[in-house]
């Protein structure tokens, strides 16, 4: 396989096509437009495929719902304010156990906010941003390569667990160019789920619904969803660890922030500070166990996010008060530099009296 140079947004589109995505529905919003445009150029005229520029994000996610009913791999993408609009549809997808991939190339909020990269949609993504008791798998890439890899994985996970999967990127990842390698070729035949709604031919008619006048029926749906969620937590939690073995201080960061942190940690190590990093790749399921395990070896945690502190709540749940946790964040679309994070790490390191390399 050869390396190609691509924008993050385009890499997602290409990876989706190679994963067998058959239908894409989107609505323009910065900073993810290159993805919609990539699909218009490269998916819309493909045999058996369809692209629709919808009249709204609400319509787009409901088109995804329709295409998923028909048993095909389907996706939509947007950025923060547009993802808010999609929450209704995501709740219905989760309720009806329909696979779908939703890409959020997030930007600064709240409100119309800014078009610069931010991570302030962590709560919305990981807590189930719509109504009702449900979860979505949330994947947080931190490079263009990973955008492509996780896009493929998102489609596989969605089908495997019949669940909507969110790819939580940000404006920085979407807009930057990096070399990457596509590990899969587009399938020669597009996959169709066996439970697709395609007319009651040679089988009894099928209903896809959640509405019921019997609460116990809906209760059982909720229980069954949560049994599956427990399985996903067990099987699919993924993370990256970086120099944690001897680390006195562990930085917890995801996505673009983790890249920035990595640069800072490299320099901190050069200065003799024993710093490592845990980068959750699945934000839900969150690697609670790994964080908990790290409390045995590390003295202090620093959570670094491009927001006011959202993932820190999950870190706190995992640490259970066994270690102290500090936070550094820049909200609103401000992207901190590695040297800024290095200053934070260094100050914290000495302030807490952590041991340096001899």
């Amino acid at each position, binding site marked *: 396989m050869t390396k190609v140079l691509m924008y993050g947004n385009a890499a997602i589109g290409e990876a989706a096509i190679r994963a067998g995505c*058959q*239908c894409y*529905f989107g609505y323009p919003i910065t900073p993810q437009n290159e993805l919609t445009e990539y699909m218009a150029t490269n998916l819309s005229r493909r045999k058996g495929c*369809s692209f*629709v520029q*919808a*009249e*709204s994000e*609400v*319509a*787009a996610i*409901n*088109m*995804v*719902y*329709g*295409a*998923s*009913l*028909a*048993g*095909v791999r*389907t996706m939509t993408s947007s950025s923060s304010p547009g993802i808010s609009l999609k929450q*209704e*549809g995501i709740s*219905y997808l989760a309720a*009806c156990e329909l696979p779908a991939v939703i890409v959020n190339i997030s930007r600064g909020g709240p409100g119309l906010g800014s078009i610069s990269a931010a991570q302030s949609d962590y709560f919305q993504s990981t807590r189930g941003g719509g109504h009702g008791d449900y979860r979505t798998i949330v994947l947080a890439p931190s490079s263009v390569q990973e955008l492509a890899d996780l896009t493929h994985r998102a489609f596989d996970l969605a089908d495997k667990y019949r669940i909507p999967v969110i790819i939580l990127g940000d404006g920085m990842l979407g807009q930057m160019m990096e070399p990457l390698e596509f590990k899969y070729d587009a399938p020669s035949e597009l996959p169709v789920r066996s439970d*697709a*709604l*395609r*007319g*009651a*031919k*040679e089988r009894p*008619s*099928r*209903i*896809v*619904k*959640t*509405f019921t006048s019997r609460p116990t029926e809906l209760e059982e749906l909720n229980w069954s969803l949560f049994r599956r969620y427990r399985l996903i937590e067990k099987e699919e939690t993924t993370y990256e660890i970086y120099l944690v073995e001897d680390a006195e201080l562990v930085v917890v960061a995801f996505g673009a922030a983790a890249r920035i942190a990595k640069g800072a940690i490299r320099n901190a190590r050069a200065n003799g500070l024993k710093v490592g990093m845990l980068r959750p790749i699945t934000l839900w399921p969150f690697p609670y166990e790994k964080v908990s395990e790290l409390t045995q070896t590390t003295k202090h945690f620093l959570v670094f996010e491009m927001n006011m502190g959202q993932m820190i709540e999950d870190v706190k749940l995992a640490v259970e008060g066994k270690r102290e946790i500090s936070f550094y964040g820049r909200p609103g679309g401000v992207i901190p530099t590695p040297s800024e994070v290095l200053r934070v790490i260094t100050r914290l390191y000495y302030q807490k009296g952590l041991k340096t390399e001899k």
Partner: protein
Amino acid sequence: MKKVYRRPKSLKRAAFHYCPGCGHSIVHRLLTEVFDEMNIQDKVIGIPPPGCSVFAYHYLDIDMAESAHGRGAAVATGLKRAYPDALVFTYQGDGDLAAIGTAETIHAANRGERITSIFINNAVYGMTGGQMAPTTLSNMKTTTTPYGRDTRLEGYPIRMSEMVALVKGAVYIERTAVNSPANIKKTKKAIRKAFQAQIDDLGYSLVEILSPCPTNWKMNPLESWQWVENEMTKEFPLGLIKDTTRTKDSTGKRDAD
């Protein structure tokens, strides 16, 4: 003995939960008669809305999937795009199609999506208890227009079918009613034509059906049928609104309008 009346094959053996005099059960029956006659039961996929007719899937023996309120046309778009061999229809009320789902409806029509909408206009939100709908008549009392719909404050009854008829992608639109045997027959014919437009791959089709809601209108079934005839049809005149299914341009392609 010759059977002159039977349950359509596409209609499940289940007792309707609808109120006495309600139009839904008639429309359900008409739909299934059309499915049988056109032999499309195994191709049709229905998208019922939230509301009284969410339970349409208890009666229609076809593939069905519920939709969020107002999103029927978008869901149908996705389904049809993913699987063009299906015959996809939405079944929507006036609040669903003409208030919360206005954008989805107009744009699906404008794209000429090969889908059909069955639009039940009963001038109120039925399942939620008789609130004002976009189609509520002027001066009509509902639970949210207790003094009667004041057009100065609450706007006018909206003629959705006429609005949708303005977009090129809509090829067949007719308004009918289910308040008399003659109108019921016309409704069935319109439903048939709407599905034919989809089978012929021509564009978006819509049948608006004036349908009695005696419970929320606080009338008995007979009064409600008469009210459709005497009051509703004044605001919502029955008949063909648009039909470009036969039009062809010089190249032999069908012209949109």
